[in-house]
């Protein structure tokens, strides 16, 4: 076939071919030419071909010129002696099939435009195929959805090789439709299982893609009638699974469990745990199934433990989870890095919740208070401003722990009886100790920290101090606050005259640094 080079020529040529095929069945062989252009090097030409295919098969689907039912193999039909129409339909259905395969391949095309166009074309096919099903309904009013085609789309999206985050964000638009969401969950479960089986070492990109897709799925909180369907139906039948939230939840649960069953990279664990309490646990049909995952994550240590705490809290709080040695592990989580990690606010919010019970034994609370004040010796001021009221709140809630700051007539000790290495708070002997750390922090350089630490000098006032506004305090905010603070009218000045950049002779700077 002769045609002008370049996309413009290709467009015109394809247009001609398309018209020919649609006009008469005799020209059907031109389909091969169109499909051939799909393989073109030039992305523009490919796009033209995709558009042409979209129009061609869209029209054919609407006209019902594709074979409906279980597709026999091409050779047997061609060889057989059926009618020419049936032959044509089977043949065309095969072309359609190969076109879809090609489009699925194009989802991994380097050019994003092509990818996007292929995706939208495939979704258009999904819609049309749903409306004009290519399989025979088993009974009247049976729910039909082009599962095969759709699974192919999802598989293309969850590519193990390329990062599809852009395409996935494009795909999120379709997830608003209830049926698409349901089938994505089903298909994703399938795909994850198959890919994990296929590869001995599943590549990171696949997990990232999967997580992006999975976290994009969000179920409605309450039972409501699902009505936004991508594939148009004349009427909805309540026998269909797709219209029930319960089924959606089951699918959602299956999908996440299937995903979390595999060994995930560490960074992904963090991501999953961050969204766990908020967007996964409430939608599961049986949230207690997450217990294993969360306890395992809690045992990992470090930041992951901190994050798992949130999910665990939801389970303990709402789903009656009995967690042995929970407080011991929580106690173990307290190490100096707690004050420096990103999730500090979340952790202390939860810790505050866990320790808010007044039924906790005094030794436990004392151990926490002591541990926290130990850690406070290495904390930056913004964290100190939060943790000092936190400790004071603990002492307020548990009057039995006030001996930590007020032990009249106590014997003078040679060393702190508290054992920081002991993992069990019961054996840490915190109740025998005193919070000398807070006394040391009264000499902290920041005036507010010093004042906050000085609270323990007096008998503690009864109402607790709310730490909620302090949780998210950043050093920058502290700095701004200090800057804006209005002191007395005149700024006090140094009275010893300056002599040079490094200061006087006995200054440390002058001792250890030279200007050159």
């Amino acid at each position, binding site marked *: 076939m002769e045609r002008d080079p370049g996309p413009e020529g290709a467009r015109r040529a394809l247009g001609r071919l398309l018209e020919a095929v649609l006009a008469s069945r005799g020209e059907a062989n031109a389909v091969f030419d169109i499909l051939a252009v799909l393989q073109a090097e030039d992305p523009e030409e490919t796009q033209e071909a995709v558009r042409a295919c979209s129009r061609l098969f869209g029209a054919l689907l609407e006209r019902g010129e594709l074979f409906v039912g279980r597709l026999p193999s091409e050779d047997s039909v061609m060889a057989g002696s059926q009618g020419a129409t049936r032959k044509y339909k089977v043949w065309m259905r095969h072309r359609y099939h190969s076109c879809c395969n090609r489009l699925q391949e194009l989802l991994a095309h380097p050019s994003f435009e092509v990818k996007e166009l292929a995706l939208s074309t495939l979704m258009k096919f999904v819609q049309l195929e749903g409306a004009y099903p290519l399989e025979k309904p088993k009974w009247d009013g049976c729910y039909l959805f082009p599962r095969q085609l759709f699974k192919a789309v999802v598989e293309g999206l969850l590519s193990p090789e390329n990062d599809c985050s852009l395409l996935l964000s494009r795909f999120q638009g379709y997830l608003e439709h209830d049926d698409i969401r349901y089938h994505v969950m089903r298909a994703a479960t399938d795909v994850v299982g198959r890919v994990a089986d296929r590869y001995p070492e599943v590549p990171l990109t696949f997990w990232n893609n999967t997580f992006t897709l999975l976290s994009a799925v969000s179920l409605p909180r309450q039972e409501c009638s699902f009505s936004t369907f991508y594939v148009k139906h004349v009427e909805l039948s309540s026998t269909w699974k797709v219209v029930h939230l319960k089924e959606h939840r089951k699918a959602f649960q299956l999908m996440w469990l299937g995903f979390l069953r595999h060994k995930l990279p560490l960074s992904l664990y963090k991501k999953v745990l961050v969204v766990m309490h908020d967007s996964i646990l409430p939608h599961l049909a049986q949230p207690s199934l997450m217990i294993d995952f969360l306890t395992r994550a809690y045992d990992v240590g470090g930041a992951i433990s901190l994050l798992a705490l949130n999910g665990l809290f939801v389970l303990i709080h709402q789903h009656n989870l009995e967690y042995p040695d929970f407080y011991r592990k929580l106690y173990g989580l307290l190490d100096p890095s707690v004050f420096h990690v990103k999730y500090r606010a979340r952790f202390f919010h939860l810790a505050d919740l866990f320790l808010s019970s007044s039924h906790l034994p005094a030794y436990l609370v004392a151990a926490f208070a002591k541990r926290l004040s130990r850690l406070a010796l290495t904390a930056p001021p913004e964290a100190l401003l939060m943790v000092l009221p936190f400790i004071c709140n603990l002492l307020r809630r548990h009057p039995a722990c006030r001996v930590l700051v007020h*032990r009249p007539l106590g014997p003078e000790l040679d060393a702190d009886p508290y054992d920081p290495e002991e993992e069990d708070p019961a054996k840490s002997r915190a109740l025998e100790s005193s919070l000398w750390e807070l006394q*040391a922090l009264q000499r902290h350089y920041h005036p507010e920290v010093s004042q906050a630490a000085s609270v323990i000098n007096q008998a503690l006032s009864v109402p607790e101090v709310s730490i909620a506004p302090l949780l998210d305090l950043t050093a*920058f905010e502290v700095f701004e606050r200090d*800057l804006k603070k209005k002191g007395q009218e005149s700024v006090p000045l140094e009275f010893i005259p300056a002599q040079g950049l490094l200061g006087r002779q006995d200054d440390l700077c002058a001792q250890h640094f030279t200007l050159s």
Partner: protein
Amino acid sequence: MGKARAAAARRKGPGAPAGAPGGRARPNPNPFEVKVNRQKFPVLGRKARHAVGQPGVSRARAVQKRTQTLLKEYRERDKSNIFTDKRFGEYSSNMSSEEKMVRRFALEQQRQHEKKSIYNLNEDEELTHCGQSLADIEKHNDIVDSDSDPEERGTLSAELTAAHFGGGGGLLHKKTPPQQGGEEEKPRSRRELIEELIAKSKQEKRERQAQREGALELTEKLDQDWKEIQTLLTHRTPKSENRDKKEHPKPDAYDMMVRELGLERKAQPSNRMKTEEELAKEKQDRLQKLEAARLRRMRGEDEAGDARKPKHLSADDLNDSFVLDKDNRRLLSYTDGKMSIKEEQSGEASDGESEEEQGEDPSDEDPGDSSDPEGHSDLESDAGSEEDRGWPDREPRQAPGKRMTSDGHKAREPAKTELPYTFAAPESYEELKSLLSGKTMEEQLVVVERIQTCNHPSLAMGNKAKLEKLFGFLLEYVGDLATDDPPELRVIDKLVVQLYNLCQMFPDSASSSIKFVLRDAMHELEGAIEAGGRAVFPGLDVLVYLKIAGMLFPASDFRHPVVTPALVCMSQLLTKCPVLSLQDVVKGLFVCCVFLDYVSLSRRFIPELINFLLGILYVATPNKHGHGYTLVHPFRASGKNSELLLVSDQEDTATWQRRGLSLGWAGGRKAQTKTEANHTRLSCLAVCLALVKRCVLLYGPLPSFHTIMRPLRALLTEHLADCGHPPELQELCQSALADMEKQEQCCRPLVCEKSKPLPLKLFTPRLVRVLEFGKKQGSSKEEQERKRLIHKHKREFKGAVREIRRDNQFLARMQLSETLERDAERKRKVKQLFNSLATQEGEWKALKRKKFKK
């Protein structure tokens, strides 16, 4: 009731006209007149004001009062003439009648003594002075009065009056005969007499005028003469003093002396000159005072009444000329080497002060060794006695600079001579930069100096604002210098003094500029953290700003508007910026030094610093995870930079010598050989160990010192175990560890301060001051007052209404009684008429009967 009260009040007055029986019957009231208001139930604490009353008495009093006032008015309602009784004190009740009589008599006397007529001038009482009549004294007084001569009037008056008014004709005739007897016998007519009189008086007048003119002329002449002499005197005295001395040394000197003594202002009692010790003591006292203020601020005690220190400072330090003088002298000490040359070239042009000093300097000392003693004395004078031990060490550092500039001076001579002497204060930073760029350090200093001198606040109005801006520009310039590659730290070193002086002058604007640059730095840091999750160590400018902030403001204050943010900023640098290179280590250590300098006096605890030192010590050890310490944020236990300071080269270790770290290198220059880098590493480690030692000393007294130092100790022991270090470092390690061990730990259980025991809740009644019974107690005082006034007004109003009603009743009663009276009168008259008529009739009838009888 209101009236009753008013009457009761009046009862107290002694002379009250209430002669009613009630007034006097008060002590023993008639029991039949007493009316008792029975209370239904007694209320404790309430005074029953109207329990007992005498309605009869008070009513009688009211009626009486009305008859005296209202009735009178009523009766006189149609009368237009008024009788005023002007007798003195007739109605005044607080004078006894005797007193009245006395006063009236006195007034009468006075009235008699009053002048009969205002035209009669001579009937005044004669005024005397020391027994002499004042009129006599006036006669002796020779005041020359122009027209109206009182003494003449006295003599003439008789004649004149006689002539004019003709009253004293007899008198005239009595007086004139002896005068006229000599001249003419013929009695003259009245007209002639008057003419003669006029002529005479005219002549007398003329004579008097002539005499006066003569006297005036004489005085004028005298004045003239005196003036001549005086001008002579004044001409001679000031100018030709010396010559005069030669000519007439004695009288002149004497005159001078006399005049001087006479005119000299009396010597004011002044403070005597102070001795050295006293001066030193005063200085010490001042420093002590400042130190006390600083300590108070450091402890964060109540800052309200503490505005003294800055004021004091301003009184002492902002003695404007003092500051600038000092600067000038200091400046001269730097430009010392060039002075001789400068004098030859631009001897005259330099400003007055420097010229003076120049004139002195080269005369007595040669340039070679002039630098040392001269600079020293200058520095001593401004740096204060306590610092001078620090200066000899600094001197050599400055000396090369001087020499170098004096060498290079000749090449730049033209530029030097072009340096103007006055500078307008720069309006923008670019202006300042263009002024300073391309100049040597000394020139830059001179320029800044001169900008300050030319725009001193005492010279013009807007100068204060200009200099305030200058501080900000200088600060920016310093930042630019610090970010240059290589950083020009020496210039900054000198500019710091200028910044300090400016800051002393304008603390508020200086603090806001420093705050501004600090906020900038923090913004940058925050932005980097938000964008990339982590920050990098900032440029040298931020470090320099932080250091400068600590020098300009008292770093030991508990809370200070500049220092506290600076501390937070440093804490951020130490916690948020990962140490990625050797330069970062140097910068971090510098921040540590600055941090420790800030708290050197207040000895405050810095957790971040300990963490940072721990991290530095850690990166200097080979990574085997030790026990007993945990690294926190900017450092990682393992990774790319976890062995940054580790030196494995034995040779380098052997050749290493301890030196100060170069701040300039941290700022920019890259090139460093491997050996140099290794040496820097060891130096960093040395500095770090020194800082650890310092921390140990600083925080020794903290209650949980050993807990704080535990990780450091663990790492130090590890360091000791690793014998790859040079002996000096080993020693440092050892001593730091020993210091740590020395601090004894005492764990005294914490005890809260005893708070005041809360008082038990008692059921004693709450006492409220009651202003008026029966009224609601308003919440606020104003409200109460308002209510009270409203209440009072209401009562007064009611009382007034009642009075008016009573008045009307009284009047009606009076009218009625009048009418009745009138009617009775008429009846009586009618009766009388009838009577007379009846009598008449009777008589007539009787007469008639008589007639019939007859």
